[in-house]
């Protein structure tokens, strides 16, 4: 850490305070990340191989039911990713947590990508099952709105010259969009939809036969760990990027003074 002393920033105490949490995050996440990746890949591989080659087909849908092993985890992660985005936004707006700002900015593209895969696989599943690629029922429309919210957040966070203003605006947008989450979840119960109601709930046995359900549990857990791994890796990159930018700025201001 000799280099840091030679390019001492103008206000070392404040800068240190600002880096305290992200520094700890970098150390901790560096240790966790390889485990997240390897466990995620392993569980996903088990689930996919089990689901594709060993699980039985559905009696009506045949092979088509195997799309479930990707569609369901991505649909769950589209919503769960948005919940994480909302938590980061509260931390950012109320507690002004610098790490939450970065995590929210990095969560947006990951969530948008997962939502896009959920919509695409759903469309591929809809054609052979329902007979339509897309219908504007309440469930499909509300998930499409979720996708647009992610895109809006991605754009808004990066739209300002001053990053802090972008983080604030993005956090407000993300929190307004939280209203969409219960609509997604309960759309299939509140209104008539083409999409079927949930098969797995907190109460009662699932309505998916156990032999079809086991691989789904593995892929769900696997994709969830991979979602976390990608987000953590992106946030680490964001922290390091900001650190380099601040060091460069400190260096230029110092050379300007001398």
């Amino acid at each position: 850490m000799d280099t840091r002393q030679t390019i001492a920033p103008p206000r070392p105490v404040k800068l240190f305070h600002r880096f305290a949490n992200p520094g700890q995050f970098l150390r901790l996440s560096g240790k966790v990340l390889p485990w997240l990746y390897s466990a995620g890949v392993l569980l996903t591989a088990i689930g996919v191989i089990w689901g594709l080659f060993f699980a039985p087909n559905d009696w009506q849908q045949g092979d088509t039911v195997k799309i479930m092993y990707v569609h369901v985890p991505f649909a769950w992660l589209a919503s769960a990713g948005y919940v994480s985005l909302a938590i980061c936004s509260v931390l950012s707006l109320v507690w002004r947590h610098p790490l939450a700002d970065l995590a929210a900015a990095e969560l947006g593209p990951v969530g948008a990508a997962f939502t896009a895969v959920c919509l695409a696989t759903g469309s591929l599943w809809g054609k052979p099952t329902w007979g339509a690629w897309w219908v504007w029922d309440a469930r499909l429309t509300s998930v499409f709105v979720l996708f647009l919210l992610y895109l809006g957040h991605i754009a808004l966070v990066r739209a300002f010259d001053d990053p802090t203003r972008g983080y604030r605006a993005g956090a407000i947008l993300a929190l307004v969009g939280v209203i969409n989450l219960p609509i997604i979840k309960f759309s299939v119960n509140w209104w008539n939809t083409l999409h079927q109601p949930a098969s797995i709930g907190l109460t009662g046995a699932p309505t998916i036969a156990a032999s079809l359900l086991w691989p789904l549990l593995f892929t769900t857990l696997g994709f969830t760990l991979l979602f976390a791994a990608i987000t953590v890796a992106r946030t680490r990159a964001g922290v390091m990027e900001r650190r380099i930018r601040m060091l460069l700025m400190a260096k230029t201001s110092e050379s300007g003074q001398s």
Partner: protein
Amino acid sequence: MKRKTKRLLILLACGAGLASAAGLTLSAFSDNLVFFVSPSDLAKNTPNGRQMRLGGMVEQGTVERTSGGHAGARFKVTDGKADVLVTYKGLLPDLFREGQGVVVLGVEQPDGVFKASEVLAKHDENYMPKEVVDALKKSGEWNPSSGSPPPNAVWNAPAKPAGS
């Protein structure tokens, strides 16, 4: 500390306002948010010549497939209380069968027959392999063409292996 509490309270107040506004809007527009109407809903109103979606179950023993120049079918859609006769020309989805949920797009004719231009199959939340269905049929617990399967506890209990 005080500033943080203030920000949190403002956030909660905004959230409560937004949630109630959204709740009121959704309940006001609830009738327009449904994807389809049921046969009972259809029976309440006189045919108005407007295109709409009708959803329900294909009634057992009512499917007549028309062959010849145009493939198609005549069948009744029911919700248990009322039923509507549907005529359709075109290809039916693979999952179409008696006892299956369907959503048909079309116009109710003055004589009460629903002329459909599109038939979509509605899959329910039950997924089971063929062996489980065969076992349920054999034991007389479920006839797929009569409607929804029995409660999942009957066929998805972990203690009872499928087929026994």
